[in-house]
């Protein structure tokens, strides 16, 4: 640490820099975590309608999940049908 560093230190507070950098990186991180396309609730609603047209299904039994895996996303549909006796 030179004498110049000591002088510069007075002007530029490193804790302030840390805070500013963190605020940016954290807000970016949070927006990535909450990434969910707008169509997902609609898709879910329409799926429930279509499936319940043909089967007597509880709408809780249809799950739609989008998972981000690096470069691509996986849309996972999970539909639990009632027992085969009820399908006829």
């Amino acid at each position, binding site marked *: *640490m030179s004498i110049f560093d000591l002088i510069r230190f007075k002007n530029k*507070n*490193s*804790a*302030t820099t*840390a*805070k500013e*950098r*963190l*605020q940016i*990186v*954290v807000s970016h*991180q*949070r927006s990535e*975590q909450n990434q969910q396309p707008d169509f997902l609730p609609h898709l879910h609603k329409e799926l429930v309608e279509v499936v319940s047209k043909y089967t007597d299904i509880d709408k809780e039994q249809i799950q739609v999940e989008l998972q981000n895996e690096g470069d691509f996303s996986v849309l996972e549909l999970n539909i639990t049908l009632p027992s085969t006796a009820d399908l006829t």
Partner: protein
Amino acid sequence: MNNAKVIVVTSGKGGVGKTTSTAAIGAELARRGHKTVVVDFDVGLRNLDLVMGCERRVIYDFINVVNDEATLSQALIKDKREPNLYILPASQTRNKDALTQEGVERIIDALKAEFKFIICDSPAGIERGALMALYFAEEAIIVTNPEVSSVRDSDRIIGVLNSESKLAKEGKEVKKHLLITRYSPDRVKRGEMLSIDDIQEILATELLGIIPESQAVLSASNQGVPVTLNDESDARVSYRNAVSKLLGEASDVQIPGTSKGWGFLKNIRLFKGETV
């Protein structure tokens, strides 16, 4: 016990003081008369036994119990100092894939019947071991150093708690507490370190306690004694205050003060220390 509480000590980042804090908080809860177990989830890299000073008494571990190779009571180690304190060590020879959700749930449920507090020491990262440690937690202690990478990782683990925990999947929320460790009031005063306000502004999590950077922490782990059961020290005071807050017996968090003395000389010492 039907009012048992499962608390995970987590951070995302490694080396910030999760194991030290688990030992200190668990031991202090026990010292105050609450039947407590500290559980090591760091399968393959166990260390809670060392910090607790019972490394030579480990015979069976968490994974042995998951695999029905030992009973829970065979694997639990009773602390020799505090009658209310127990430790469940992690396996050193297995890896984290040995932790199944069903197995962990079975053990947590069994512990809930025996203990008031179940303190889960999470491994670093956000992979299987860390996810299993936090999955069944009702409360979380987020250990954070006043340093950029630790704060960022804490924010990440808060996101994981909000999406991957059992409570989150049930549409509920894990109660989160922020524990700031390795805090140096002198450096904050000089503008060299993030302040408590800075960290809280970014993480927006209720503060549980502030543990100052302290020689007492290394000294305690050297001896295998939890900081709260060791000799009087600044860190011991801070951890005990944090436990009072956790128990709802105190509402304020005490901020460690700057060191007193002749500032000019102190700076010279620090100057020399940093250039080495």
